[in-house]
């Protein structure tokens, strides 16, 4: 599969701060790739380099087989910090951005009406942007990012601030665009969101790549360390099972979660549980992206940093 984005050995610093360090990335054509990491991990800096808004100190950035600068008109970009001309009319704003991307006005006018229908905003073409609600403004901004029908779409936190209904509308369109064969780079620090929709994950932390691969390959790379048990007797005592400990505050009434100790064989623990109590169901749970990420941070930066990240992710 050919790569839409190829980054080789890219570094970028701002003064003393190293935002991106020797980064290598490959994003295959047609993938819906989650670009993940906590705040300050270097996601936005990397995206800005892809958009040739800023330039790398070293290394090379190739987008759609050419330099990032030359590929500008073939990329759609929804930045994290949403920008809109408050006094401009919706149609005028989207048309302006489309024209800057090299599409003729006559084509844009037709597309704008069609797309306004698709994002469930019919009849707002002549309304000023400042008259719209925040959610409507976000949909208009999303529209401006895709109106020129780009081959690569970069969405930085596309769902932030959207209510569930609007998030579903935008999610549906992202899915359609992916089905049409467009490559989508979806940046977020809300990992479960990426887990739901992405077929590929790239995770960075402190400017360095820590994970890269398809969802299933990443999950299979990590030894599952959690067992989910559905006991018949809700009051059963599993505290005496060697090699595993109950995860506190996870008992939701119908099931229990147990974390395996390091170096313990999961099948042995499963057998011990079944011998101790009758169960309706028992399974080894695949690790979530949150857990994988925390584990990566713990491995690279120690448990204290991992705890901080866990705390941060719990607030998302």
């Amino acid at each position, binding site marked *: 599969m050919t790569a839409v984005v190829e980054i080789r050995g890219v570094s970028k610093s701002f003064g003393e701060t190293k935002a991106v360090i020797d980064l290598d990335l490959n994003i295959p054509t047609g993938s819906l790739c989650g670009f993940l990491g906590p705040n300050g991990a270097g996601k936005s800096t990397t995206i800005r380099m892809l958009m040739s808004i800023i330039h790398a100190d070293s290394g090379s950035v190739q987008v759609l087989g050419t330099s990032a600068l030359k590929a500008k008109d073939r990329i759609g970009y929804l930045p994290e910090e949403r920008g809109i*001309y408050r006094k401009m009319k919706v149609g005028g704003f989207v048309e302006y951005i489309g024209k*800057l991307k*090299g599409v003729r006005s006559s084509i844009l006018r037709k597309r704008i009406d069609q797309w306004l229908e698709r994002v469930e905003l019919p009849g707002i073409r002549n309304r000023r942007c400042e008259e719209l609600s925040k959610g409507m403004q976000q949909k208009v901004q999303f529209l401006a990012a895709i109106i020129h029908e780009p081959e690569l779409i970069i969405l930085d936190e596309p769902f932030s601030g959207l209510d569930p209904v609007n998030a579903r509308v935008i999610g549906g369109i992202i899915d359609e665009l992916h089905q049409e064969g467009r490559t989508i780079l979806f940046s977020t620090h809300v990992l479960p969101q990426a887990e739901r929709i992405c077929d590929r994950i790239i995770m960075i932390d402190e400017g360095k790549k820590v994970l890269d691969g398809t969802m299933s390959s990443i999950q299979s790379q990590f030894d599952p360390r959690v067992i989910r048990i559905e006991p018949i007797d809700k009051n059963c005592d599993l505290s005496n099972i060697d090699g595993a400990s109950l995860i506190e505050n996870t008992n939701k009434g119908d099931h229990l979660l147990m974390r395996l100790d390091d170096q313990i064989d999961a099948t042995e623990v499963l057998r011990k549980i079944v011998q101790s109590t009758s169960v309706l169901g028992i399974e080894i749970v695949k690790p979530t992206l949150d857990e994988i990420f925390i584990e990566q941070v713990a491995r690279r930066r120690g448990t204290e940093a991992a705890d901080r990240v866990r705390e941060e992710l719990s607030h998302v």
Partner: protein
Amino acid sequence: MSKTLVVAWREFRHTAMTKAFLIGAIVMPLLMMGLFIVVMPLMMEANSTPMTGTVAIIAPTDVIEEFQERIHSKENPNAELIEQLPDIVTQDPLASSMLNQGGSNTTNIVLQQADIEDLEELKNKVRDGALAALIVVPDSLLGNQTSEINDQLEVLIPSSFSPNHTDLLSLAVARSVVDVRLRRLGHDPSAMHDMVKRPRVAATRLALDGGEKADNEVARRIIPMAFMMLLWIATFTSGNYLLTTTIEEKGNKVMEVLLSAVSPLQLLGGKILGQAGVSLIMLLMYGGAAMAGLVTFALLDLVPVSHLLYLVAYFTMAYFMIASIMAAVGSAVTELRDAQSLIGPIMIILIIPLALWPVLSEHPNGIVATVSSFTPPLIPFVMILRITASTETIAAWQIIMSMVIGFAAVLGMIWGCARIFRIGVLMQGKPPSFLQLLRWIRQG
């Protein structure tokens, strides 16, 4: 280039096609032009409405006779004032016809000699409108003592009486008193007036090249200031728009969206080009209003075509200097109030030509004027002042040198501004200091 033009058109459209701009930059100058071309002549026409009715006069008989003759004569009562105006005004057909309108149609009044004992009754008649006016000339005014002849004569009029007609009566009766004084002393008043009439002074400057040029106070003082102010208004208004639109784009976070479609240089170029159109409109509108004023007062000769060509050249220079400074400052800050601290010192420099206007226009070839006309960013403002104020031709080498230095400075400033712009547009938070801006130029 097409992207630059798209940005330029949006910048122009969203600045110039707004109600505020239409009122401030187009409607106001048009109103000024209308005032000069249509309203003022109409107002002057209105002033020539004939004075009618009966005027009672309490005065010695010879004063009444003199007044009778003067008030019914066709002589313009403003003749003395007109004599003091420059030939360029009085000899122009349009201007002279307007100035002389006050002297026509002034004879439709009836004079009625009255007695001082009826003063109160006459005053009541004036109040009631039965009399158009009452004039009281005390005998003492015709005496020989200085203290007496400085007494006042009275012109009593109804509250609604026209100020123009008041002047007419006052001037006529005052001149009649003077004429009677002279006559009583055995002199011929008209001969005496001719004797005391000041001769017209024609100041002519003799140039080193043998040429001669009439001196003109208006041309020497007002026109240069008008040219410099025109340059100021046109460039600083659009410069200010450039500053605010750039800050707005940073403030509402649309900058990143724009930079995902265009390069910082394309964006900067488009914004400067768009506002150049705005600035040009300002120049044409306010310049047009000023020219309309010159046409109305028949002073068009004071502005030769060469001055207009210099105006265009120095306007171009001034605009790009101011625009690049404003765009750089706008890109570096996120709020308008932060911009003030950066613009303040620049404004102090740029205000020098305004502060030095009296010195520069009095000594347009002096050392201060010459040095400052080679000093960016003062060049365009000082040079246009010098060229229009100077009574002798500015040396060609000085004009050429000012152009070369000025446009080289424009290129340098645009280059520096572009480097600041490229870094500044993505910066948020605390505004940079001057030193940081210089560092950005080095880094950019």
